[in-house]
């Protein structure tokens, strides 16, 4: 187990270093001089040169990479060209929205998908299965912004239970903040849950054909107990894989939903930074997401080992 853990950790670190090199290199290759961008078109060549020296842009490539990577490690991401504030402050502010949103959506998706998958698999080919898988098909097909609009219409406009958009900030209290994240989380979770339910169902159906399910039935366990005790855990591996991918998506891929609900999330930050050529922000957020995805993958790999003892003893 320790060997497995150490190996996974080492691979994750190596991936992170490699990704940082790629991100750094891409931004080096991209045309455009940050110093000139900051000073504007009218600046003289001397002024630009001065700023370049100040920003350390004239140092050798390797040195600049190390400086940048070192900055990342100490959470010093540099200053945004457009907002003129430390990037870390921007990111922190946005993460306070995006991270809870992603976690709530992920939890919702799991809580919906796994029971639906179990239900469907246990009634394979019968009406209940057809109906829930039809609903799941719809969930995959319908875009999440449409869900979002419907949710706003029903819960915000009609029932007036939650605000239609915006984010009051955590300083306004936990409940008001959570309330404004609820609808977006549901809108994000529904399509994810639909995918996850289908994956859960097919993984379960495969497992239910295994010999050990018959052994468990021959012990006298009722079908339902076999499903929960024997089938579910064996079907978890594909489900965990999809969950990991979904978390990465939910962190960064939520720009449409953020726009629908006027949420100041990470997705909107990146979008704005790209349109304004605020490359240092783009660079930092990309690195942050890379780190998050790698961390999630590490967690997924470790949870494989928790679920399946065969992975623990192998290396």
């Amino acid at each position, binding site marked *: 187990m320790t060997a497995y853990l150490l190996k996974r950790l080492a691979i994750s670190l190596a991936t992170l270093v490699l990704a940082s090199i790629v991100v750094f290199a891409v931004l080096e290759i991209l045309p455009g001089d940050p110093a000139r961008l900051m000073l504007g078109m009218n600046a003289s060549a001397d002024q630009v040169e001065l700023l370049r020296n100040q920003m350390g842009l004239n140092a050798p490539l390797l040195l600049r990479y190390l400086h940048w990577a070192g900055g990342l490690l100490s959470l010093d991401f540099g200053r945004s060209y457009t907002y003129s504030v430390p990037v870390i402050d921007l990111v922190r502010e946005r993460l306070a929205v995006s991270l809870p949103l992603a976690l709530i959506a992920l939890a919702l998706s799991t809580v919906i998908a796994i029971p639906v998958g179990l239900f469907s698999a246990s009634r394979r080919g019968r009406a209940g299965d057809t109906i829930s898988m039809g609903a799941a098909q719809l969930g995959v097909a319908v875009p999440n912004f449409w869900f979002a609009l419907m949710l706003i219409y029903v819960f915000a406009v009609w029932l007036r239970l939650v605000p239609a958009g915006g984010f009051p900030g955590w300083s306004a209290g936990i409940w008001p903040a959570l309330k404004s994240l609820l609808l977006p989380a549901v809108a994000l979770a529904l399509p994810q849950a639909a995918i996850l339910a289908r994956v859960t169902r097919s993984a379960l159906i495969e497992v239910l054909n295994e010999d050990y399910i018959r052994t468990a*039935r*021959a*012990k*006298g366990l*009722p079908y339902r107990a076999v499903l929960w005790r024997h089938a579910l855990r064996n079907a978890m591996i594909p489900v965990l894989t999809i969950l990991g991918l979904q978390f990465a998506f939910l962190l960064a891929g939520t720009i449409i939903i953020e726009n629908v609900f006027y949420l100041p999330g990470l997705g909107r930050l990146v979008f704005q930074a790209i349109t304004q050529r605020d490359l240092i922000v783009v660079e930092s957020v990309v690195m942050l997401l890379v780190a998050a995805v790698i961390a999630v993958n590490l967690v997924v790999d470790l949870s494989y080992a928790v679920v399946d*003892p065969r992975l623990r003893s192998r290396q």
Partner: protein
Amino acid sequence: MSLLEIENLSLTIGDTQILKGMELSVAPGEVMGLVGESGSGKSMTALTVMRLLPYAARASGRVSFDGIDILAATEDQMCALRGDDVGMVFQEPMTALNPVKTIGEQVAEGIRWHTKATRAGAEERARRMLDRVGLPQAKFPLSRYPHELSGGQRQRVVIAIACALKPKLLIADEPTTALDVVLQAQILDLLRDLVAESRMGLLLISHDLAVVTEMADRITILRRGEVMEAGDTARTLSEQLHPYTRQLAQASTHVPARARPHDTSQGKPLLQVEGVTRDYPGRRTSLFKRAVPIRAVDDVSLSMQPGQSVALVGRSGCGKSTLARMILALDKPSSGAIRFRGETTTGKSEAELKPARRDMQVVFQDPYGSFDPRQKVEKLVAEPLHVLDKKPTRAERREMVAHALHEVGLDQRDMDKYPHEFSGGQRQRLSIARAIITRPKLVVADEPVSALDVSIRAQILDLFAELNQKLGIAYLFITHDLTVARAITDQVLVMHDGKIVERGKTNEVLDHPQSEAAKALVAAAPDLHRAIARRMQEQG
């Protein structure tokens, strides 16, 4: 009073009739053997008693167990019976246990479910049961996972699960088919003891007449869902009144007619294996220590003459298949040399191996798993032709495939069919056709008949013998089944722990084994005639 009474049981799945007017009974303390070929409905009979039939199955007739009408019982009643009064052991021990649960959990689970015992109480009973089936605490604590056990050990766990609550009836569906003969003998002994201990009824299902004869008091012979003959084992099998019984008995002891092999001691050997060793990297126990390699094949030397038929016998895990893979140049020896037709094959590139590949082919055990189900027979059988120097034209290819199919007794029109349209025996003919299409000098056959029913296996053995005579192909048969070795080979090599421990003429070695390993194999091998004789003697 019978424990289990099956009367006029009929079973259909969809439109297919599986059982027709089936009759069978088991008394307490009695071993009933249920024999039949694949598809005869043996397993479905067992699943009917357990009421674990597929969703689409419909049963009619009467099945009563201990006074309970099984076919009319509610699911709750059945759950109370299963695992408590009726236990079941399955054929495939490798997949019968849940890989993510410890053996302790799996044995204790049924105990807890039925007796409402505490976790500790159930685990203690599970511990005693595992001790009883030969898995002692010291080496097999409850915290072991199935993947840490071998096939035979896993089957012991399955038996422990089935017998944990001292059932009145145990159903064992081919419990030893997937195991080698020595393990088979051990598991059969264990079952026999468990029956004697608690007067448990045992319904033993097998396609192996010899195994059933050794174990069963009475026997029921099933064919295509109908009972052909039933009665006392010794009498049924010694009198062989029913033609099907006779057919089965003859097929299971079938020896193909073979002309005596020509004197092959002269001339250049076809295959020479010299001091071959194969090490696999072992598991690391610590980050700082080098892993100790596992020696699968240990300094093996052998030689084969053209046209010679040699058996390589040994228990599972003894290194037979690793050796065969090296002979086929599919794996590289760690040391030693292999020469085929006088040329070294070790350390050659794929391109250099091409001529050698043409002259050696392989037949695998599983006729179901060794074909791509989406390809037509023509393409499947023609597969080895890519090792020819000149690519044959389509017409030439069809001609060669037709010829090969003809030689294995199939019709040339079969080449436009898909594998699922063939029965198991026909599929094994297809793999033989595939093996001989390049006119090889050597065919390596890895347990080529162990997945087949006795009558089909007799036909396939005949086919092997015929091709050996007609085409002069040398065979290396890898098997743990001594009847196969005896039926079809001239020479035998006995392998144990990676070494060849005994070699010689097949009959001499099998009649008078010298090494411990060979003696164990011979003693454990079920033999129909010997079993009948012993039964007759016991009954006087």
